[in-house]
Each structure stands twice: as structure tokens, then as C-alpha cells.
């Protein structure tokens, strides 16, 4: 099992992990930092890591020709794969006959094995599974689909994206200067959300760390190819990554790892909790 990291600090590129997910500047959301093509090229040359690029914005007509050029450039670099949300990317990769692997990354939609198999049949090699799945659902998808699954195990999860500049609009309505970040708290659940505005979109992150350390072993046992940890909002990150690499390298048998990282909190997101949709 391999460990991918999505950073929120560009100084952490020397971490001990399998690879990085680098959000592409101007074309990624649900990320706190992004990278230009030039930066990506430098990172590929400098670090011996698997490099995945995230292009997960909803694309508009005007973006297509630019994205086409970007894909051609990325195809020439030693990029391991591209996380995509918009199906224009899948269509372009097919049309251009590019030799670059794709990761189906439609955040809240990657939820069943049949659709994973469908995308696999379309040439998509990987899928980042939805964060609203139970562990049992994840294991079932890994078992029943041909696609290579990725599971985000530790992060402050991204929960929504709006094409509205919600922070700007809020401060404009108040007659005040805006910022690009805002924390809000839902009044009944007391859940806090961090809003980040960029590229005319607003991304929502839950301000609670999903602590999936306890499921890493389960994923290891079912041969999950990749787990993902995101840096945003997590302290002592270097140590966490180092320990996690050791844990999975040693076959996930060291219970001290689980104990040590109880400090990340007790939220296991939906791993052990099903969502409902009928309220009657």
C-alpha cells in the first residue's frame, strides 16, 4: 500500500511518502495551495516521488483549449496521473490519445463498484473513493471493482464547492473588505467549516480532522493500492507521515501507531456511520 500526500505547505516536499498530489494553479478547488506547470516540472526533476496532478475544477467552455494544452504538456512530463472532476478531461485525454493515467475524482460521486468498473472500462486507472462511504462500502468497492482505489484516511474533508464568491459576497453585503478565508459555525450541530475562495469558486472544508488511522490496517488487508493524507489543518505533519509510512511498511501491525494518533481526534467521518436519506 502506498501513501500519497496533499500538502498545504510547499516547504514539505521532502517528506517521506510515496508521492504527492499537486493541485494545478487556476484549475483546482478543494485545495489550499496550488502549483504552476513550471513548479510541477521542477518538483518532478528534484524529488524522486510519484507525482499526481489535481485538475478538479468544474470547467467552462473557455477553459477547454487551455486545458488541452496543459494536458499535452503534462503528458510529456513524468506525471503519474491526473485527478479529474470534469469529464471534459477524460474526453480530451481520449481524443488526444495521451498516455497519462487518470484518477476519477468526482468528490461525492465515487460511491459504487459498478460505476468504478464503468470508468475503468473507459480507460480510467484509478478512483479516489467518496468520503461519505462506510468502511464496509469501501472494502466492497476495492473487492468488486477492477479500478485501483485510493482512500483519503486523514484530512479535514472538503465538503462542498460553490461557483459563487461566497466570502466576497458576504463582506460586500456587510460593506466590509473581504478576505479569501472565513470560518463559520453551523448553529445547531456546532460544526465549524472553513471556507476558502479562489478562482471564483468557494471550497468548504469541515474543520474537524477525520482520523482514519484505525482503518488503515483494514485497507491494507484488502490490498487497497493507495491511501491519502492531506496536510491542511494537521499539526506535526512530518512526524505523522513518517510514522504512517513506517506503519504500512511493517504490515500495519504496530498498535502504538493507532494509540499515538488518537490525538488527531475521534472523528471517523462516515467510516462507521451510514448516511440516511429518508426522513419519514
Amino acid at each position, binding site marked *: 500500500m502506498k501513501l500519497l500526500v496533499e500538502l498545504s505547505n510547499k516547504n514539505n516536499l521532502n517528506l517521506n511518502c510515496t508521492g504527492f498530489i499537486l493541485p494545478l494553479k487556476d484549475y483546482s478547488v478543494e485545495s489550499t495551495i496550488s502549483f504552476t506547470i513550471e513548479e510541477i516540472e521542477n518538483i518532478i526533476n528534484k524529488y524522486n516521488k510519484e507525482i499526481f496532478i489535481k485538475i478538479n475544477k*468544474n470547467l467552462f467552455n473557455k477553459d477547454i483549449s487551455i486545458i488541452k494544452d496543459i494536458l499535452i504538456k503534462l503528458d510529456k512530463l513524468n506525471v503519474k496521473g491526473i485527478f479529474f472532476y470534469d469529464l*471534459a478531461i477524460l*474526453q480530451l485525454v481520449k481524443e488526444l490519445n495521451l498516455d497519462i493515467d487518470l484518477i476519477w475524482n468526482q468528490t*461525492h460521486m465515487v460511491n459504487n463498484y459498478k460505476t468504478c468498473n*464503468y470508468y475503468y472500462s473507459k480507460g480510467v486507472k484509478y478512483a479516489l473513493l467518496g468520503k461519505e462511504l462506510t468502511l464496509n462500502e469501501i472494502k466492497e468497492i476495492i473487492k468488486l471493482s477492477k479500478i485501483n482505489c485510493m482512500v483519503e484516511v486523514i484530512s479535514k474533508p472538503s465538503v462542498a464547492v460553490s461557483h459563487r464568491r461566497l466570502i466576497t*459576497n458576504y463582506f460586500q453585503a456587510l460593506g466590509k473588505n473581504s478576505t479569501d478565508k472565513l470560518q463559520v459555525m*453551523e448553529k445547531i450541530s456546532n460544526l465549524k467549516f472553513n471556507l476558502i475562495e479562489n478562482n471564483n469558486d468557494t471550497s468548504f472544508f469541515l474543520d474537524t480532522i477525520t482520523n482514519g488511522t484505525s482503518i488503515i490496517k483494514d485497507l491494507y488487508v484488502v490490498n487497497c493500492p493507495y491511501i491519502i493524507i492531506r496536510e491542511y489543518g494537521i499539526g506535526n505533519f512530518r512526524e505523522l507521515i513518517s510514522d504512517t509510512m513506517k506503519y504500512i511498511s511493517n504490515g500495519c501491525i504496530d498498535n502504538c501507531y493507532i494509540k499515538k494518533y488518537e490525538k488527531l481526534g475521534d472523528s471517523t467521518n462516515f467510516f462507521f456511520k451510514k*448516511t*440516511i436519506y429518508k426522513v419519514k
Partner: protein
Amino acid sequence: MTKKIELLSPAGDLERLKVTLLYGADAVYIGGKKYSLRANSTNFSIDEIRQGCDFAHKLGKKVHLTLNIVFHNEDMEGVEEYIKEVVEAGIDAFIVSDPFIISYIKKNYPNVEVHLSTQNSTTNYKAIEFFENEGIDRVVLARELSKDEISYIIKNTNVAIEVFIHGAMCTCFSGRCALSNYVTNRDANRGGCAQVCRFAFNVENEKDFTMATKDMNMSHYIGTLIDMGVTSMKVEGRMRSLYYLATVIGTYRNIIDDYYNKTLTEDKMQIYEERLSRVANRETSTHYFLKEADYTDQYYTGRVEVSNQDYLGQVISYDKEKRLLKFIERNYFEVGDIIEVFTPSGNHLKFSLEKLYDDQMNSIPVARHPDNIYYLELDTLIDIEEYSMIKIISRRKDNE
């Protein structure tokens, strides 16, 4: 000759299906008991789907079925049998978001149309090309698109294009929001959305943060959409009332027909706008159609949602010889009120209410019990069909 644009109405149950088709919808979209994004709407049993399809087809109209949840493993169980059942019940099109389901339907039921749900938030022509290759017949575009972007898509793709024209909006991209899952544990993408985007949030040392959107109202741009080559115009609201749907669908029917007949004047538009505004419970906007959506398209503090009391009753029958209208009451009214009866065939008849009777034909001054049957005398020889609606124009006390 170019095909006339389709007016597509929501229908949360069989009665709404009938009413909206009678009021001028060319097609309805409905949800079954399973796999629909309005899990808490009444929705249709297989038998009701069959009845609805029969009713629609006799009028030369169509029924689209939503099958647009984001499927989990467990939801896949039984879906193939369900698809078979609803196809046999007579549906004309599926509205789907999951590409596996799209490919399954196109492979097994090639004569049934498949429409890509707005849940996919399709925002560009290249993504549509992908679905064209998968055999999709129609794409319901994302609501985040401008006029120019829609126009470009229509010119550069070969599938039918459907756009929303009226009703509530999501704050986030459809399908790209799980706020409901996290705040309420109700799955937004399987029909349980709790509309968390309409909640108020605390912000430290500032006023509450809200992000609720105003509703969409494209009534002034119907001609533009027709000229652009849009295939279908969709009204939001499977959980809306009969009265709301009758008013909104009837009004858009008028606007569309007047536009094609070149009889849509500013005076008429004012009347139509007034009708739509009377049933609106929020302010409206065209959102992204003319500009980037901004703070004027949202609500902040002081938002008021108006509960409408205009709707007085629903007509059961009209006896032209006795000039007696039988109806079921919805809101209080009394002798002396000025009322309007509007019919599925498009008549709007104004009356001063002079004689009112209870279900035993006792003369009464006031109808004060919703859901009770009442009669009123009207002086008209015009047909007033079942499902005509009665609304208040002005109250007696205001007329005195």
C-alpha cells in the same frame, strides 16, 4: 420548421402530474419510490407511474422519470428490475446522473431516452461530447452557465439541451455538495438534502453568515432561450403545491405561446410577471445568465419567506345551467371578496363573490374550513374545468 420548445414541469404526485399537464406543460418529470433525489416527496408507485404515463400520452405529452441519485453499492441492488418495470409502465425518458446507469439503459432499452441530470453540473461542450459518445439524448445543463456559454454549447454539440427557468437554486454546484451529510447525516446526493445552504452560521465577531440564494425567474428571457435553440425549459419544484404549479406552468405556457404567436406585449408580460410574483415566496434573479452571480443574488440578514394566502380553493366542477361552482377550500374567504377563477385552458375570470354555500347548500357568509367542500354562484357561461383554481384578488374589508 423548428420544433416548439418543451415546457417541462415537476410533478410530486399523480394529481400534480395531471394538473401541470392540463395547465400546459408538454412533459413532466417525476420521481419513483426509489432512486430519486427527492426521497421525501410523495413520489410515484409503479402503478401510479403507469397511470401518469397513460394520462400524459393521451394528451400527446411525455413523462420523464428521475433516476438521478448518486448510487452506493446497496442502491445498485434491484435497479435493473426497477428500470424494466418503469419502462413497461410507459415512461418516455430517464433523468440519470450515473454513467454506468446511462450505459445500462442505452444498451438494454435503446428506444427510451436518457437525459443527463443537472446533478452532473455539466458546464462545457467537451464534457457533453463524452456523454454524446455514450448515447445520451439530452443534457440538463448546470445552473451556473451564462447565456453565451449555453449558446456556445448548443452550437457546438449534437444533443438536446435543457435548462432550468424557474424555481429554487442550489448555492453549490449540484452533486458537489455534502453539507447535508455532515450537518444532518442526511445524504444530499441520495435525495435527503436538508438544504443546509439555507441555514444561518455564526461568524466570530461578525454578523451571521448566510449563503441562501434567491430563486430563479427567467420569464423575461423565454424568447431568448427559444431563439438560442434550447430544447426544453424546466421548472424546479417537485414538492411545490398544486396552486403554485398551476400558476407557474400556466403562466409560462402563456409566455411561450404568445412568443411563438408574436403576441407577447409588454402589457401582457406585466400581467404574467405579477402572476408569478404572487406565488413566489422568495425574491428572484436570473443568477448567472447575464453576469457572474454576486451578492445581489443571495440573501443575507433579514430574509423573509412569504407564506402565500392567495389560494382560496380548487374547483371540482361547474354546473353552467345552475351557475354553481363546486370546490374544495384551501384558505379562508367570504362574501364580498373579489376573486379570480383561472382554468387549465387559460381563462382568467374575475368575480365579486355574492353567494356562498356549504356542502348542504346552506347559504353562509364565510368559508373558513380548509379541505371542506363549498359552492359558490358565478355568472358565466364559460367552461370552468376540474382543477381550475380560485384565488383572491382583494378582500371584502379592503373593498369597503
